């Protein structure tokens, strides 16, 4: 589905990714693990076109991915950033409609009614401003907004960061539901247990390259890798 091959990318003069390669397969959840500063978020931003690819190739179904974020979004890649990036001057409803109106759903796709069924809390908050929500509600809104794009691939950056354990569990259960429904996902996550219980495939990134790849059960068993690259 999505292939990154020998990617070099970073912020301005500072290069963060040094020849990173990975593959996200359809209908599966790929977790990208690594320590702070390893290049996990940089990888996601590079996929989304928010950082320029200096070398290497990104393809979606063997076709080169366009360079601009809005073209990438229109190909069906939805992004939930670490900072959630709810639009503060839009209400919850407007935040959702912004995605819903641009990506009308085909049969059985995501609609406003369906995302509100998934996250009933948002239904009670539709007329609130985007920033009047708690951290957990903002995360639900960011995921709901991404789903309304009816994506083929959902990319999530640290979805549990800063959230109370009860909300982490809720987000976990909802992502599990999405996984069972067959949605392809790429998940960057510091919470090892959370990530490996959702993921099918795992890559571990260190110093801007993939240092290990395998399945979720394999990484749970590979204590040396966990110790060396994840500090678990």
């Amino acid at each position, binding site marked *: 589905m999505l292939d990154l091959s020998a990617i070099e990318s970073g912020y301005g003069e500072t290069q963060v990714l040094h020849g990173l390669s990975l593959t996200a397969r359809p209908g599966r959840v790929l977790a990208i693990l690594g320590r702070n500063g390893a290049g996990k978020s940089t990888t996601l931003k590079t996929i989304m076109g928010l950082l320029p690819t200096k070398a290497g190739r990104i393809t979606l179904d063997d076709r080169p991915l366009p360079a*601009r974020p*809005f073209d990438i979004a229109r190909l069906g890649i939805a992004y939930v*950033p670490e900072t959630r990036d709810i*639009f503060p001057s*839009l209400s919850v409803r407007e935040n959702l409609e912004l995605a819903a109106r*641009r990506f009308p759903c085909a049969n059985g796709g995501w609609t406003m009614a369906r995302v509100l069924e998934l996250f009933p809390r948002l239904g009670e908050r539709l007329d609130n401003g985007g920033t009047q929500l708690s951290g957990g509600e903002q995360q639900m809104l960011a995921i709901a907004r991404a789903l309304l794009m009816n994506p083929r691939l959902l990319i999530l950056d640290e979805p549990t960061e800063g959230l109370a354990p009860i909300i982490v569990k809720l987000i976990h259960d909802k992502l599990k539901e999405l996984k069972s429904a067959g949605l392809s996902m790429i998940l960057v996550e510091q919470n090892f247990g959370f990530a490996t219980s959702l993921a099918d495939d795992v890559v571990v990134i260190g110093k801007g390259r993939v240092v290990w790849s395998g399945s979720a059960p394999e990484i749970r068993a590979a204590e040396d890798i966990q110790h060396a690259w994840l500090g678990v």
Partner: protein
Amino acid sequence: MPDPGFWTLQALNALQLSMLLFLLSIGLTVIFGLMHFVNLAHGSLYAVGAYVAASAAAVGGYWAGFFLAPVAVAGLGILLYSGLIRRMRRSGPMAQVLVTFGLIFALLDLSRLIWGDLALSIELPALLAGRTALLGIEYPTYRLFIIGLGLAIIAALAFVLGRTQIGAMIRAGVDNDAMAACLGINVERLFFIVFCVGCALAGLAGAVAAPLLSVTPDMGLQILIPTLIVIVIGGLGSLKGAVAGSLIYGFVQTFGAVLAPQLASVLIYALLAAVLVIKPVGLFPAKG
């Protein structure tokens, strides 16, 4: 103690000045808010609007100029955008300030070449000439027309920005252009539309100001500083900020000039300094 008619007259004068400044500042502030682009040549577009209106009015009367000026200035905006501004988008504020500052002088000399140095004037149509009785005073009908036009445009923009999908897209783009792009919004095209509408409003401001002031090549430079003060006081990127900034400037300037003429030119700068000290981002910035 002046009579109540004096206060009414000055309040209407202030409101009229505010509406003119609003037409100029709204385009500039949203362009700045959406794309962090500094267009110092915005005032020059206002001057070009006034000249186009004066030329068109000489041939086809006031209304020909009124309708043609916004279209012509939007057309000039398209040329500037495709030839210059699109290339400057990522080049940082210093380069943008220098290039658009240079553009002020290029447009100034271009106006001189086409229209000469002599001041032009526009004759009002019979409908808007004369005076209208209002709140116990006789007030020039044309100035009331400017107030009405400004209020109508505020209402129209409030509707578009607050209630339509394109308005939500613009607000989202001002909040966070990268995230807006990740939702499939073509922010560059949105910026182009906003830029053209901003240019059209600057052209309209020139056309409505032309009968009040004489049309001279440097009128764009004269209006630039007040417009920048309006957007700094009001806060970048928001309609509310442009309305508030324009009203504050209009009232302080007008009442300052009649009540404390010695202080008039200092008052607005003192207010600007006070706003910058108390609320450096302005009163109602788009990014709270």
